[in-house]
């Protein structure tokens, strides 16, 4: 098995993950939009309201997953697009790590924000 495992091509995994995250995002994005623009009008949003929602563990987890999947999906999408555009070699590597860094920062900052929104701290 081991050698098969080593011949594993990441192209396929990323492709698959892009689809899996997409499926997850369909639901969550729709929910997110609906909740914050139709149920609660965006203009009426206050920190207090946000804090109430974010303090529910389920909602918090969903939003955090939303953040992570969307980041992966979006950044991976951008990366694919650039590769298809003919990005190669060192530049490709540079872009890759740049994107990874950006994602990590985004997720980290997002997480910090999310935690700040709860009344846990």
């Amino acid at each position: 098995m081991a050698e098969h495992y080593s011949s594993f091509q990441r192209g396929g995994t990323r492709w698959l993950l892009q689809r899996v995250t997409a499926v997850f995002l369909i639901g969550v994005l729709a929910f997110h939009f609906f909740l914050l623009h139709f149920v609660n009008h965006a203009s009426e949003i206050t920190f207090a309201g946000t804090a109430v929602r974010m303090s529910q563990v389920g909602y918090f987890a969903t939003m955090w997953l939303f953040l992570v999947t969307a980041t992966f999906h979006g950044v991976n999408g951008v990366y694919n697009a650039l590769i298809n555009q003919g990005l190669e070699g060192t530049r490709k590597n540079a872009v890759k790590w740049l994107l990874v860094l950006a994602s990590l920062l985004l997720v980290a900052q997002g997480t910090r924000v999310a935690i700040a929104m709860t009344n846990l701290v």
Partner: protein
Amino acid sequence: MSTQTEPESETEIEESEAAATETESAVESPGDRRRREKGERAVEEEAKRKEAEETLDEEDTVQIKVFRYDPEVEGKQEPRFDDFHVPFFKGMTVLDALIYARDTYDSSLTFRHSCRQAVCGSDALFINGSQRLACQTQIADLDSETVRVEPLPHQDVVKDLVVDMEHFYDQMDSVEPYFDADELPDGDETQRQTPENREKVKMSTRCIWCGACMSSCNIAADDNQYLGPAAINMAYRFAMDEREGEIRKEDRIKIIEQEHGVWRCQTQFSCTEVCPKDIPLTEHIQELKREAVKSNLKFW
């Protein structure tokens, strides 16, 4: 002929030729005569051609606008379009029109063609903005006053409508396009294949290597190393053929999974739309993507 003995027939020719030259040479030498005749004929031809073009009735002619380019010939180095007026008949194809234009107006008009029946794949061209086989395209179906004919986009133009197919062939070759079974029965036995399995690969075996799909694909245009729809379809044809066996299939999946393989396809469908053999290329590419994912998941 054979009833005559050879020397006889030879003398006969000599005699008749001698006679011919004798009468003529009183006036001019044979060389002069030939040149004069050539000249006269050229004038005649020109007149005929003019007349032919003039007598063509607007109503039953079509105008074809053809891309011209020749790296060597002065005046053709700058690409241009030439117009030809061709008499129309029912059932006329774009290839018929091109042949007519070449044989009647300009014998240097260059394009590949052979079978005239959509099996040799020589004449995929860019006709009125789409990749089609000239021989398979009825002028009447184009519904347009003029027919614009160009060489396939995204391929180097060699001359006029001829493009360099080497790259396309290379891509085809790179997927190991040959049947290679894990094991074969004894000499005088055939392998078995279910009719369902044959049905499954049937469409993929119809490819005539015309290159239309590759030319239409935006991804292939940008990424020269992309295998392209035809080559991937070729891989599909063998990977899905149950006669080859699992081991070979695994290898084939690895080939199409490479960096510039199936993952590059962005399901733009234009390949499927232009394929003159109606091969569902996108479907085959997508199925291979799933096969690849499946074969990778197996080992998790």
